[in-house]
């Protein structure tokens, strides 16, 4: 069984983003780039499953759509334990263009299980995984918070409003993964970092795709009014303010 984990290269989650070029582009100066948190959890779960020989997982590949500048992030994924990587050599335009490039990789390489994070922390689209599934006509399960194998069959937990469903789908399938799939992201050990240097990153040239959407600009959220402090000796005043001033009680 072959696993593919799709990874996105995003600014570290503590970044206070700034924009340049008339608010059309993100100011990349000083940004630390990381594996998108949900993708990192997906990778962690894939590797946990591979560690268990009964699952029969032969390889965990990571795929990324981006220019060579994102190779440090791919190396991180290899250091964490992915066996190899594919990079599609193009600047991501929108979710559809990324999904189309990934679909091409899957068509050529064939995987049994494909994991995508439910969103990326930069565009917050929650779209690439589902698009990829439809492009390939594969079944997809979204909001996946658990994945295991029983007698060679994938058993999936999917979050629903107020609970979860335990379900099965046949391979090949796409799981769109959210929090809960793995407890903590796996951290690269020194040995992994050394080994990652020699693991292959295969570069695929992109196919031609017309994007469906385009970001025309960004704006920063309006700063909130200054906090009104209530005397800790009289917390009842807070309840009064919430009822009479904010009118939310």
């Amino acid at each position, binding site marked *: 069984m072959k696993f593919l984990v799709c990874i996105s290269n995003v600014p570290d*989650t503590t*970044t206070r*983003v700034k924009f340049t070029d008339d608010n059309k582009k993100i100011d990349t100066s000083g940004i630390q780039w990381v594996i998108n*948190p949900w993708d990192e959890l997906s990778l962690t779960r894939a590797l946990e499953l591979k560690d268990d020989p009964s699952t029969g997982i032969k390889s965990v590949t990571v795929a990324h759509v981006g220019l060579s500048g994102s190779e440090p992030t791919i190396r991180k994924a290899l250091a964490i334990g992915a066996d190899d990587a594919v990079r599609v050599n193009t600047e991501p335009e929108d*979710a559809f263009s990324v*999904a189309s490039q990934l679909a091409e990789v899957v068509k050529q390489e064939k995987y049994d299980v494909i994991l995508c994070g439910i969103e990326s*922390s*930069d*565009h*917050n*689209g*929650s*779209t*690439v995984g*589902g698009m990829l*599934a*439809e492009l390939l006509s594969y079944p*997809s*399960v*979204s*909001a996946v918070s658990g994945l295991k194998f029983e007698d060679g069959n994938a*058993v999936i937990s999917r*979050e*629903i*409003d*107020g*609970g*979860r*469903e*335990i*379900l*099965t*789908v046949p391979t090949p399938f796409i799981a769109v993964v959210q*929090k809960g799939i793995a407890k903590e992201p796996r951290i690269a050990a020194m040995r992994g970092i050394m080994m990652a240097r020699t693991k292959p990153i295969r570069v695929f040239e992109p196919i031609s795709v017309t*994007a*469906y*959407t*385009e*970001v*025309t*600009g*960004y*704006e*920063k*959220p309006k700063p*909130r*009014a200054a*906090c009104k*402090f*209530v005397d*800790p000796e009289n*917390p*009842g005043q*807070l*309840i009064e303010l*919430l*009822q009479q001033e*904010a009118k*939310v*009680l």
Partner: protein
Amino acid sequence: MSVLVYTENWEGKFKKSTFELVSYASRLAEMLNTTATALSIGNVEKNELEKLGSYGVNKIINANGDGLNILDNQAYTYTISDLVKKSGATFVVLSNNYTGKALAPRLSVSLQAGIGSGVSGLPLSVEPFVVKKRAYSGNAWAHLAIKTGIKIITLAQNSFELIEKNQGATIEDIAVQLDGSLVKTQIKEVQKQTGKILLTDADIVISGGRGMKSPDNWGPLVELASLLEAATACSRPVSDEGWRGHDEHTGQTGKIIAPNLYVAIGISGATQHLAGVSSSKYIVAVNTDKDAPIFEAAQYGIVGDAMKLLPKLVEAVKELKP
């Protein structure tokens, strides 16, 4: 040209968020000088369907068929996509909830339709069609132009008001003939929590962080929540420690919520936490550290120990609601 809104049901019932979504679709249709149609799939009684008509749609499609009793993303995509094509709709609106996130991207490919997800309001412009959506986990808004013929919008939860407008909607029943081999999802078990107010539905959310110090200290916070008919939530360290369940984790990698009132007790307010709650209309913070970043996001705050303050807040609320 028309607007089609997918109205999900929960065991045959709609929620307030469904009616907000319908209100949004109707206003969008007004902006575009067209009409809005609601699409319901599965078993919903006529009197429940009629409620959708109070929020501005003039037609309700009631689709039903074998294989649609569980959410199989491929089967649902096929069904909705087919109905969109037949109805000639050029705008498709879904909620940005679990189901919307599962279906909208598949529909996008199937209908060759660009998608604006997590949209927070009516479009900024119609020609070109530009929507404002959440980006950089709440640190920015992106203006996204959708360039395709058909356009899909998923609306962020709690981002639009209810607008009543009775158009006297007609109900059209459609029997869907689904190819059975399309349904590949098999549900083995459903685990449901009952009697709990859902975090994503709640108008008020009371949330605890590391400042709660121990899983044993949650009593007064839960009591405060139940008095205010609020949902309970927590920060990431709390759910990672197992003090509270992962389903309560709000923040960048947890649930993204936008209640009218978010009360953060003993939460410092790291960027990742604020990413999940910054769209709340009011944020109240209780924290011992007056320099905690949560106070920058909050409109009201108390500097003090949660353990001492919570019982007093409970008392104050009890006086408010005898």
